[in-house]
């Protein structure tokens, strides 16, 4: 019994990581209709910046929150620079153009990170209040995984409130429906898009900084994270925050039990879930069918 329980919790922990990354990705796609392949790179920047900040100011309980905030803001700044300088030029362009341009950013950011940090993995501590584990029947389970789950839920709630209970959210939803009409009503759509992109980048940075204490930080984590994040976004429905949340849980838990029961084919299970969902609902669980 304890084995299944901790495996379920581990699956939810993985789901939390996936949602933290996928939330920004799907937010940006939903509002700007851009497939940002460099989202994983921004996540990686957040992780590396958090290591630098932790080295500089320490990783005590209070410093941990400061590191999370500053790393997220640093990534936001990088994202805004990307959006203002290049990405806004390719809104409305073909998917291939978007993928090529954002993939160029993957290479550029990867090169810059390598130049700054070198190619060795970096390690950061876990803040004292999140160290250790709790006993679940007869098994130990790391406290930090619970923190990630709580953070993912907090991000989901914050995003929902922002989209459905604020003026910014109303404008974002209006921009998704008809950006030209919104512009005619006096809203600076360009600035609005930059704001949404910045918010998505903030969550990418937050995800990188939050996941960093879970293991180590190294080059390559950008690519390794983005593939499953895309799976989550597609399953949930492109642009749907709620869909990303449910998709992350579905993938995280399916992957976790696949690892336990079918270790040889656990990765295939993730993609089997994707195939089944797309067969039943090509637009994803919460996506709207394109007219």
């Amino acid at each position, binding site marked *: 019994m304890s084995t299944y329980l901790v495996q379920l919790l581990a699956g939810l922990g993985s789901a939390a990581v996936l949602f933290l990354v996928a939330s920004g990705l799907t937010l940006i796609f939903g509002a700007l209709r851009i497939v940002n392949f460099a989202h994983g790179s921004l996540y990686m920047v957040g992780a590396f910046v958090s290591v630098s900040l932790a080295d500089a100011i320490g990783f005590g309980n209070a410093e941990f929150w400061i590191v999370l905030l500053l790393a997220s803001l640093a990534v936001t700044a990088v994202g805004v620079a990307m959006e203002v300088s290049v990405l806004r030029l390719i809104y409305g362009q073909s998917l291939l153009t978007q993928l090529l341009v954002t993939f160029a950013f993957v290479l550029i950011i990867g090169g810059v990170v390598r130049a700054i940090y070198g190619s060795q993995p970096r390690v950061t501590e876990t803040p004292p209040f999140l160290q250790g*584990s709790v006993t679940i029947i007869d098994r130990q389970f790391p406290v930090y995984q619970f923190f990630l789950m709580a953070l993912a839920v907090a991000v989901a709630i914050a995003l929902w409130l922002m989209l459905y209970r604020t003026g910014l959210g109303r404008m974002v939803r209006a921009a998704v429906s008809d950006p030209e009409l919104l512009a005619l009503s006096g809203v600076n759509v360009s600035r609005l898009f930059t704001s949404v992109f910045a918010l998505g980048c903030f969550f990418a940075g937050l995800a990188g900084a939050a996941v960093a204490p879970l293991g180590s930080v190294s080059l390559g984590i950008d690519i390794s994270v983005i593939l499953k994040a895309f799976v989550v976004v597609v399953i949930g429905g492109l642009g749907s925050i709620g869909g990303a949340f449910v998709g992350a849980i579905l993938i995280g838990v399916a992957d976790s039990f696949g690892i336990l029961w079918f270790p040889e084919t656990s990765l295939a299970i993730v993609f089997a879930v994707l195939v089944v969902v797309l067969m039943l609902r090509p637009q994803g669980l919460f996506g709207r069918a394109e007219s």
Partner: protein
Amino acid sequence: MSQHRFASHGGDDRRPRFFVVFLALALLLVATASACGGDDEGNASGDTSETASCPLDDGEVNIFSTADVSAVAGDITPMQLRWIESEVPKINAAGGVLGCTLDIEVVDEPLPDFESGIRKYRAALASEEYDLYFAMFDSALVRALPKFTNRAKKILILAGVGDHQPFYEELEDPSYAMQAGVSTLGEGRAAAKFAADKGWKKIAILTPNYAYGQDVADAFKEYFLELVPDGEITTEQKPAFLEKNFQPFVNAVVASKPDAVFGGQYGADIISLYKLWKAQDLTIPTIFFTEQSVLEQLKPAQIPENSYGYDRGAPNILRETPRGQYVWDAYSEEYGTSDHPTPGSYVFIIDSAIQLVQALAEKTNGFDADAWTEAIKAGGFAYESAYQEEPTDVNHLNFEANTCATVGLVKFSEELSQGFYDPEDSAHVCLDEVIDDEEREELIGR
């Protein structure tokens, strides 16, 4: 295309001023030694005659290799390049190899572009500019390379990669491929022997789902079950390299109740797993591929209880041999104040490859590929490496050097300020201890 050429002349050295000064000093020393009638006994780079006449027309022995120059996969290639950069000028200052200037050209592959690597070797072969070839990094690439180098009758020396296929089930006849480092088979079996000697019977496999991880796990599993007939593999988990959250895998491993966990995990993944082990106070012994990049990163508080590792020769163990001590000292002298102050196992491997070149050239008095293989086939050929006190044998059947892997308890050294292998709880297992000629012949189908 990134490219590094290391010789005592020409080339695009990264630190030309250093080389000019160094070369001038070295030449001055050589000239002084000659004038004083001194001998070369103190020359750790070999006793190459300064007056030897190079048998090659251009006066150079040119070696080509691709490697992970852009360091996509960490410090493995950079540490090899550091040793080449340090050692080759010394060899050339001492007269080169048989009087020929040694020139090692290392070109970025770039990883993981297998096709690009193949193209670069094929272009190098077609150019006929190179006398010898090294393979320094990519296992997948090296598995394919002998098909080209053998056809061209060119020597290919594995100087970093651990792949064992070209030397067993895929051994070609005639073959001109030689293994100067520790093979996947060697390290997997060394770890299996260590586990069996510990009395562990139930092993969980937790290894990355790519070629190296699978190969080393297969080598371990097969040999472990041979050594421990009532042994059991409790689960086989194959996470992706750089997995974000290992917790589901750790749960599955713990649930299988193993005596120990083995895997080809390395670099960042080991550190991630150590964190989870520590967070849950797990004491199940682990044996992971704990090489220099991990050892350098470890802090005392991060090493869980019962953390064992394997390496292609742990540096603190290899430095106990004369050649190992030379490499350790020379490397530390050159790079002791850098971010990588002590040599990793790959430094000893590239040194082994260079030593093998020198020894075969001296043995045959030339660079003819057939003469080199005949010298080994005749039996009893050995050269100086860091792996043993005595000369290292090269097997006459498949040209593998009797190199050694280290398996042992990983601890923290205050002196080195990094992880190290505890000599009190380590085994230095050489290839000939885990495979004999009878099995070799069986595996290569003779």
